[in-house]
């Protein structure tokens, strides 16, 4: 599960070739994606999971907070509660739908925050080089000296539990890898001939970064960011599982998993359900990221 943070094959920047006989780069990428049925399938599943979370109030048959103590721990297939009920009699299907909202929010937003912060720091470090590069990269190295889960747990433990704090803690551990990727692709682009041409024609640094650097590195960085979603969702639910993330009685998959842990002797199948959803979601994100990566890899032949 720590794949994305631990071993990075630094990607080569895919610089679009302007040869007359080759189709435009993005057109090639989309054509490859259209033919990749696995990536399309996991994409469809993800769209399904996200829309189920968004439309939870419409789809859910019960309230996520109120249950009947008379119907505690009903098994899967009970009429009226087809996925069973939890330890206080709340409908599992309802809680899973609502849980998706917080789990996805807690898993996706840290990556986006880290993408914005780490991506910009990396561009600054890679583009300017020199002192700024040393300061940013050495600070990144020091943050790398912590096992990521440990750092997230420590930050959460100090800030206190809650959704926002868990998002901040996870964003903090995803910034260093984002900086590294963004710095390495920016320095690759920086030495290309068209950069010199842009400078010679009088473009300012800001213009060059906006038009020439960002447009050339954005694909690589976005693909890397999608590979972090899987880990982020696992860790976000993990923090809630430890009691450091979302607070009860809110529904969240990791929190549900933790409270249903007491019920594994009574309803083992019901108790495993929230984790199964975390697994499916994170697997889909991983497969989608792999699909995107191979679609965007220009070195691969058709």
């Amino acid at each position: 599960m720590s794949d994305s943070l631990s071993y990075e094959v630094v990607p080569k920047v895919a610089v679009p070739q302007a040869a007359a006989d080759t189709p435009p780069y993005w057109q090639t990428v989309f054509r490859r994606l259209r033919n990749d049925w696995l990536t399309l399938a996991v994409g469809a599943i993800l769209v399904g999971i996200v829309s189920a979370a968004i439309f939870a109030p419409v789809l859910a048959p019960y309230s996520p907070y109120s249950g009947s103590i008379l119907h505690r721990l009903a098994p899967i297939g009970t009429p009226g509660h087809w996925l069973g009920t939890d330890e206080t009699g709340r409908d599992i299907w309802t809680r899973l739908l609502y849980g998706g909202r917080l789990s996805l929010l807690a898993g996706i937003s840290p990556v986006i925050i880290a993408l914005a912060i780490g991506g910009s720091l990396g561009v600054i470090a890679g583009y300017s080089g020199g002192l700024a590069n040393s300061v940013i990269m050495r600070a990144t190295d020091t943050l790398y000296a912590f096992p990521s889960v440990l750092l997230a747990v420590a930050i959460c433990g100090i800030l206190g539990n809650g959704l926002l704090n868990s998002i901040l803690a996870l964003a903090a551990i995803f910034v260093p890898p984002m900086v590294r990727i963004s710095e390495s692709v920016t320095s690759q682009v920086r030495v290309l001939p068209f950069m010199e041409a842009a400078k010679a024609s009088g473009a300012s640094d800001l213009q060059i970064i906006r038009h020439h650097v960002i447009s050339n590195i954005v694909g690589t960085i976005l693909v890397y960011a999608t590979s972090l979603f899987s880990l982020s969702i696992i860790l976000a639910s993990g923090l809630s599982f430890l009691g450091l993330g979302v607070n009860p009685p809110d529904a969240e998959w990791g929190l549900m998993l933790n409270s249903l842990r007491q019920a594994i002797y009574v309803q083992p199948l019901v108790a495993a359900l929230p984790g199964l959803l975390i697994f499916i979601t994170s697997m889909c994100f991983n497969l989608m990221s792999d699909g995107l990566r191979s679609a965007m890899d220009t070195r691969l032949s058709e």
Partner: protein
Amino acid sequence: MFILRRVIQAVPILLGVSLIVFGLVHMLPGNPIEMMLPAEAPAEVIARVKADFGFDDPLPTQYLKWLVQALHGNLGTSVYTAQPIAPDLFNALGNTLPLAVLATIIGCGAGIALGLMAAFGRKRWPDKLCLTAATAGVSVPHYWFGMVLVIVFSVLLNWLPAQGKGAEGAFWSLDQLRYMILPAITLSLIPMGTIARVVRATALDVLSREFVDALLAKGLRRGRIVLHVVKNAAPPVAALLGLQIGYLLGGSILVETVFNWPGSGSFLSQAIFRHDIPVLQATILILAAIFVALNLGADIVQALLDPRLRRR
């Protein structure tokens, strides 16, 4: 020379680590006193706790005092139990260590086997199977996987104990091993998928080199080629292993919660729920120092395996 240089390079990183650990506790909103004492605590109690734990000093002084004490092996006193932290912490680490070693052996062995199988069965079913297993391995929430193992092997089959560490005794005794199997398998997932992917990529890279064709042309059996692949794939895997054991130590906080294993992870989460700041600080410092040492060790092993790296 090379080893000496790497050891010296680790010193500033360790200093940075200690600075971050200290900074985390003291710079973030909510000071340690507020976290330790209830809001309605009388002023004189607050003053006494502040004086007892040295929170009155300016931050740089506090940091230096803490660092010097830590270097002397004194990690401070728990505010919850009023006992010195070091013995309890090292006791907990002693419980995590055998688990981590067993998990590393399982994860590394299975990962290397999967990766080699995938590389030699390229484009056929072994490759597909191994890649799927590796992707599933990095996608599965390991705390949930641990629960599933408990459900299958403890609840349904009743073969293995669901949680705890078992009676006191050597950890390799049969009784202790029974308790260690499920948590160790769960933890082994953390390195397995990544190692499998890297071994596969490295092995494919080696297999595509010209010397392999030359060896085959000379009549070397395919089985002997594996030896060459292993020899070339060893350095990157060694480097990876250092990182992965560190992640395993970090991830153990979740797995130890699932299995109620009295190791460093449980120790840390206990400190968090007791708002025991000195214990939190000491545990993170020691775990991060172990992580740095592991990576240093992995670097050195990698350089010993691959002499080209020593010249850098």
